[in-house]
């Protein structure tokens, strides 16, 4: 019995070390900005940098727009695919994976080439950035919504609502969306952390975003990038924690969805 348990645990520990050691090293390094003492100097320096607040606020706004647009675009689309053309689901799923296939650099040059000349000059508008972020969010949003809808009996719920007199708007906003709350939250938090850290698109479209700021710091400083890395990691973990929290808070609801 003990012998059986030994090897799996060894791998778990080795794997854990592989991930945690660099993290610990980064954390330790970020605390050593003042020679000889452990302190938060690097963190203070990052947080006092006015650009930190500016770029963070900018990216935050972009993230919120991205999430809203993405939900408004994806929920009706995925719902429609589930309801009317379920056989197209594999195709739609493939399309949503394209952001993983097309490198960001190709994506951004395509955008610049297309939208920097008439008839559509969009490179100066943040709408283009949001649009590009919406595309980046596809894999996460689609998967979240798809999973959420799968847990519901979409067709029957739609018909039940119709027979009670509901039109499409009512069905989407009063029946479908409320039941996707947990799914949408997890999609939204994932999108949030993607947008907050995104570098290439923001850099080449020349927006003062958080990603380029981190990059810039990394170029010129020694301890601050480590501090920033820890801060953004904390942000990501906060997002994941919130997903867990909301997910658990609505466990009853998730159960309902399963108990068709």
């Amino acid at each position, binding site marked *: 019995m003990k012998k059986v348990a030994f090897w799996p645990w060894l791998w778990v520990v080795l794997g854990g070390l592989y991930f945690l050691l660099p993290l610990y090293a980064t954390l330790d390094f970020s605390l050593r900005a003042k020679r000889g003492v452990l302190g938060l100097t690097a963190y203070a320096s990052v947080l006092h940098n006015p650009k930190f607040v500016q770029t963070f606020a900018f990216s935050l706004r972009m993230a919120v727009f991205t999430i809203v647009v993405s939900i408004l675009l994806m929920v009706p689309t995925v719902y429609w695919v589930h309801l009317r053309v379920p056989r197209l689901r594999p195709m739609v799923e493939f399309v949503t994976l394209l952001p993983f296939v097309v490198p960001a650099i190709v994506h951004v040059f395509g955008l610049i080439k297309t939208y920097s000349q008439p008839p559509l000059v969009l490179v100066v508008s943040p709408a283009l950035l949001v649009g590009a972020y919406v595309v980046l969010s596809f894999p996460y949003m689609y998967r979240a919504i798809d999973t959420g809808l799968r847990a519901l009996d979409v067709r029957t719920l739609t018909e039940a609502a119709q027979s009670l007199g509901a039109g499409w708007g009512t069905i989407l906003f009063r*029946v479908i969306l409320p039941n996707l709350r947990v799914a949408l939250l997890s999609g939204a938090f994932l999108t949030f952390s993607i947008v907050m850290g995104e570098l290439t698109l923001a850099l080449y479209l020349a927006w003062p975003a958080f990603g380029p700021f981190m990059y810039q710091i990394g170029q010129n400083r020694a301890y601050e990038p480590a501090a920033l890395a820890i801060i953004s990691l904390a942000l990501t973990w906060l997002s994941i924690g919130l997903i867990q929290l909301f997910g658990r808070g609505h466990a009853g609801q998730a159960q309902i969805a399963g108990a068709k």
Partner: protein
Amino acid sequence: MAFLELADVRKVFNQSVAVEHFTMGIEPGEFVSFLGPSGCGKTTTLRMVAGFERPTSGTISVGGVDITHRPANRRNIGMVFQSYALFPNMTVAENIGFGLKLKHVDSKSIAQRVSHLLEVINLPDKGGRYPAQLSGGQQQRVALARALAIEPQVLLLDEPLSALDAKIRVSLRNEIRAIQRQFGITTIYVTHDQEEALSLSDRIVVMSNGRVEQIGTPLQIYTYPQTTFVASFVGTLNVLRAKVIDPAAGRITVDDQPVMVARSLAQHRAGDMINVALRPEVIGLDGAPGTINQLQGVVEQVTFLGGTIRTQMRFASNSLFFDMFNTPNGKLPQTGQTLTVTFPEASCLLIDGPVGTSATV
């Protein structure tokens, strides 16, 4: 003109016919069941009435108004689904009130109506629960209340009990029927359970392969099946191969034993082989000789079923089974024993072709 009219309704799904020549009128307050095997088009017909499918041709009207092309959400037809389909994000009361809210009924009237319906479905204190906190039977009762809340012109139920276990099925079906009577609502009930259809309905529509086989009261359907399909699908049957002796007199033989049938054999000639069907319950052991048909055979198997005893008998080439009550002092047939069974001549159904085809009797 009846209240709900289906006139020559037909539905084709990419070249395969799901329903055709469906014509019937349903009276106000009537309880009609659609009965038939899987895939015969019951649900499709119901969905056309609900507005979820458009007929390929034909018309549907309610109260004299043609609704064939009206969208489902403007039909005012209530629907109860096999899977309950309650909105998981709403409480029981919110589910029931949903349709009224969409009609902009004021919230006080909604609350009154909801609590009345909760009384009707016998769940007066469950209004604040979420659907997941209810049993299947309770959920289906809520679904019924939700459909009734909008005072629909027609109530449709698609196998509402098939997801429930047997005991609840029987009690809930009676409850549904009682509520339907109380509201006097015109109802179509889809089922593939003949017992359900026979015990609940004012009239039954037996369907097979997208066509109506017979429309009639439960008694008519059971006692006077008009097609072989109906005869074999509703109730159980013994089918015997018989030889026509005298078509005019209705005289035939089953394995060389004489049998009289009280039906015309005019389309047959002496020497033809035909199928005669007998319901197990018309077969007995003690009839007055002479007036009643008798067949002598060997008992092959006796099965104890609790309240009844099923006996399987074999003749030269035919076999049949019949049931008798398990009375304390009745003597039971013994395996291997030679036995004579009797049945009235009027109870012989004539069937064309092999059982399961839908030829006219």
